[in-house]
C-alpha cells in the first residue's frame, strides 16, 4: 500500500469536507476572495465534484477597492469554469463614501464584515466555505473546521462543537450558519507547493514586477488607480514588488522581491522573516484584534 504524501493527505481531507457539506447542508456557498487560498479552494472544488461542476455558487464581497487585476482575474475564472459567481457590494457604504483612507477600521467593518453578513442574509446561505487556515494567526489555531455562527453571524468560542475523527456535525437551527474551513490544516508553504504541483492559475500580483508604489508607515502600497490619496511629498516610484496576500490595494502591503516564478516564491516563503499576515495592515492594531473581529463575524 502506498503511503500518501502530506499534500495528498491534505487534499483528500479538504475534498472530504467539501463533499460532506454539499451532502448535508441545505444551501452552501463558497467565499471567493481571488487570492491564492481561494484559487486553491476553487481548484479543490473542481476536483471534488468532477465531472460535475461545483454544485454551489461562489460569492465575492467586493469593497470596490480591490486591485483591478483581481477583478479581471475573478471574471476570467468565472467564465473559464462556468461558475455561478455572485458579486456583492455594500451599496449603503458606497453611497456614504466609506473608503479606506478616511474610515480606518470602520471601513473594514462596513465594506467587508457587514457586506458579508448582508450577502449571507440576502441569499440565505446556511454554509459558507472559507479559505482560513489555522497557521495564519494564534486565535485561528483553535478554530474548528466547522465553525458555528448564531443568527447574528457571531462566533462564540465557548459554544463550539467538539470535532471527533471526521464525523462532522452539520445540524443547524433556522437562521444559523456554519463557516467551513477545508484548508484548516494547510500552511502557507503547503498552499504554494500545491499551487506548483497542480499548476494552479493565480493572479500575477503574487509575482515580482515593476509596479508604481509609495512607502508609507513601513508598508509598500501600490498606486493602483488615481483614487489613491498621496500624502504631501509622496511620489509613486517604480519598484520591483510582489504581494503575499491580496485585498484592498490601499491596505495591502507589498514586499520588494525578485521572485518571478513559483519556485522563487516558495524559496522566499521558506526563508521568510515575517509571516504573511503582517502585510495586512489591520492585523497589527493590537494583540487579540483578530479574535475580536472574528467574534463580530469577520472571517
Amino acid at each position, binding site marked *: 500500500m*502506498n503511503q500518501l*504524501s502530506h499534500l495528498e493527505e491534505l487534499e*483528500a481531507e479538504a475534498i472530504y469536507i467539501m463533499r460532506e457539506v454539499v451532502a448535508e447542508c441545505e444551501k452552501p456557498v463558497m467565499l471567493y476572495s481571488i487570492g491564492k487560498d481561494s484559487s486553491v479552494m476553487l481548484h479543490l472544488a473542481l476536483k471534488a465534484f468532477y465531472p460535475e461542476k461545483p454544485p454551489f455558487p461562489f460569492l465575492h464581497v467586493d469593497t470596490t477597492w480591490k486591485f483591478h487585476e483581481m477583478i479581471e482575474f475573478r471574471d476570467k475564472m468565472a467564465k473559464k469554469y462556468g461558475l455561478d459567481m455572485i458579486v456583492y457590494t455594500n451599496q449603503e457604504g458606497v453611497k456614504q463614501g466609506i473608503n479606506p483612507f478616511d474610515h480606518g477600521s470602520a471601513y473594514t467593518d462596513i465594506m467587508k464584515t457587514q457586506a458579508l453578513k448582508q450577502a449571507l442574509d440576502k441569499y440565505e446561505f446556511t454554509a459558507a466555505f472559507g479559505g482560513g487556515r489555522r497557521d495564519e494567526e494564534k486565535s485561528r489555531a*483553535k478554530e474548528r473546521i466547522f465553525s458555528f455562527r448564531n443568527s447574528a453571524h457571531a462566533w462564540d468560542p465557548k459554544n463550539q462543537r467538539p470535532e*471527533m*475523527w471526521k464525523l462532522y456535525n452539520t445540524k443547524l437551527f433556522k437562521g444559523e450558519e456554519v463557516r467551513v474551513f477545508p484548508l484548516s*490544516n494547510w500552511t502557507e508553504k503547503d498552499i504554494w507547493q500545491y499551487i506548483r504541483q497542480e499548476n494552479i492559475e493565480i493572479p500575477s500580483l503574487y509575482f515580482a514586477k515593476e509596479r508604481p508604489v509609495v512607502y508609507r508607515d513601513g508598508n509598500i502600497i501600490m498606486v493602483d488607480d488615481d483614487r489613491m490619496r498621496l500624502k504631501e511629498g509622496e511620489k509613486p516610484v517604480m519598484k520591483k514588488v510582489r504581494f503575499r496576500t491580496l485585498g484592498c490595494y490601499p491596505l495591502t502591503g507589498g514586499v520588494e522581491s525578485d521572485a518571478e516564478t513559483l519556485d522563487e516564491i516558495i524559496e522566499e516563503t521558506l526563508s521568510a522573516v515575517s509571516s504573511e499576515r503582517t502585510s495586512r495592515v489591520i492585523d497589527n492594531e493590537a494583540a487579540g484584534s483578530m479574535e475580536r473581529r472574528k467574534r463580530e463575524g469577520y472571517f
Partner: protein
Amino acid sequence: MQSLLKFITCGSVDDGKSTLIGHMLYDAKLIFADQEKALELDSKVGSTGGAIDYSLLLDGLMAEREQGITIDVAYRYFTTEKRSFIVADTPGHEEYTRNMAVGASFADLAVILVDASKGVLVQTRRHTRICALMGIKHVVYAVNKMDLIDYDENEFKNIAKQIKIMTGEYDFETMHIIPVSATVGDNITTESAKTPWYKGGTLQNYLETIDVTDHSDETGFVMPVQRVSRPDRTFRGFQGEVEVGEIHVGDEITSLPSGETAKVKSILNTNKEVDNASKGQAVTIQLDTEIDVSRGCMLCKDVNLHTNKMFTSTLLWMDDNKLVAGKNYFLKLGTKMVPAVVMNIKYKVDVNEGTHVQTDKLYKNEIACCDIACSDTIVFDEFKHHKELGGFVLIDRITNMTSACGVVEHPLRRDDNLTWHNMDITRELRAQQKGQEPKTIWMTGLSGAGKSTLINEVEKRLFAQGKHTMLLDGDNVRMGLNKNLGFKEQDRIENIRRVAEVAKLMNDAGLITLTSFISPFASDRRSARDIIGDDNFIEIYISTPLEECERRDVKGLYKRARSGEIPNFSGISSPYEAPENPEITIDTTGMTVEESVDYLMEELKKYI
C-alpha cells in the same frame, strides 16, 4: 515526498506541555520573525516576567491567556527536513477530558508528558486511557523536568518501570520513553550531554522517523458513500474516501446494507481516471449496473462488516446535559446518520483508575459502556479493527450539540440477553420525543379582554412551529368534564382544580397546554400553579381595562350584568383580582390581534 505525522501532546498544565512544543518550534527556527516579536511582547505582559515563555506560542485565546491555562485544542504546523508535522496541543485538566479526546481522535501518535519530580500520576493514567480509547497506537512518554531531579538515571528508570506497568493494559503498537527538559531543551531537538546513560535519541528524531502506517492485514476494500453524483443521464458516480484497502477497475463490489453486487466500471481519483485507488484517496466510482446505493451505504469487497441495528459501545460524554438512558439521539457513523437510543448504561469507567462503577446517569467528561439501538440498520465494524468504521458521535436532537463520541466494541443480536434499563417512559422522554418543553399557558383576564381570540391564535402559531398543543377552553370544559358544576364558590374552586389537574396530565404526556379562563381570584390561580408546578406554569395576564372590555362587549354580557341580569359578574358585581407577578402581561387596547400575538409569541420564547 514528505509524509505527514499528526500527533497530540498531553499532560497537565504544570507538566510544561506547551513549553515543550513551543521549544521544538523555536529550536527548529520555525517561528516567523514577527511571531517571535509577538512572543517577546506577550512575555512582558505574561506572568513569567521578562524571559521568553515558549508556552505563549500555543495558548491562543485571550480568555485562556488570562487564566493561564489551555482550554481548547490548538493546532500547530511545522516541517523539518524529514517530515511535516501537525501538533494538537490539548488541555490536561480533568474537566477538559473531551477537548483532549478531540485532539486524540485526530492524531496517530501521542506525546504524554510526565513530571520527573512527581512520577506517574492519576492524570498520566487518564491521558493514557483516553489516547487508547480514541484509537492511538503509538505513544511517547516525555519524562520532563529532568533538570529538577539532577538527571538522575535511577529515578528515571523507576518512572519508566511505572509507565511500562501502566501501559501493559493497552494494545499500543509502539511505546517509547525519553528523559527531557522542555525549558532547558535536553533531548528535545539536540541530544543532551547530561543524560549520557540514555541512548534512545531525541524526541524530534523519534517523531521524524517513527512509522505509524497501519500494518494490520488490510485486505479487501471499504468506501463509505458520501454522495451520489449525477451530472447527467450518462454518469452516476459514488463519491467518497477509500477507508480500507484498495480497489481496481473490474473488481466485484458489494453495496451494504442492501447486499447487491456490481462490477467497478471506472474510478476517478479526484478528477483523473485511474485503474485502481487505495486507502486515503478521494474517489468517484462508477458501477456497471444500477444497484441500490445512496449516501450512508458502504461499497465493500472481501471484508466482514456488521449489518445490524444494535451494538455495545464505549462512550465519552461531552455534553453539559447529562445522558439519561432511553433518550433519543442522532448517531453519525461514517457517512450514515440515523436516530438511535442509548438503551442502558452498563457501567461507568473511572477515568483515572479504570474501575467499573454502577450508574444510571452520565455526566460531561465521563466514560461508560452502553448498549445502543439504531432505528435503522447500519453498517459498521469493531473500532479496534477499523477506526473509521467503528467510531461514531451522538448528536442531541433538540440542541444539535455533539453530545458524545463513542467506539463500537461489538454488535448485539436481539437474543443477546438484552436488558433495557429503566425504560419507563418519563415525562422528560415524551417531551424530548416531541422536541418541546411541556408547559401550561394560563391566560387570565376580564370577559372581553381578548383571551379566547389570543389563545386561539397563539395555539395556531405554536402548532405551525411543529409543537404539539392542547387548548382547554372555559366553555368547552363546562359542557363536558365539569358539566355537574355550577357557579357557587365551591364549584368555582373545583372547576379550576379539575382544569389544573387535566393541564398537568397533558404536560406529563409531553404536550403544551393552553387554558383560557377568567379565573378572577388569586387564590384559585395560586392553587392551579401549585398543582401544575411553578416551573411549568406560565401566567399571561390580559390587562385590558374594564372600560375597554365593556366598550367591546362582544357577547352583550356587560349590558346584562349592569342590568343585574347576570349576578356575580367579574369586574362588575364580583371582584377581579389582577395577578401580581404574572410571567407575561399584555394590554390589548389599541393593538391589533396580530400585534398582540406577535408580542405574546416573543415573550413566550423565554419559557417554551
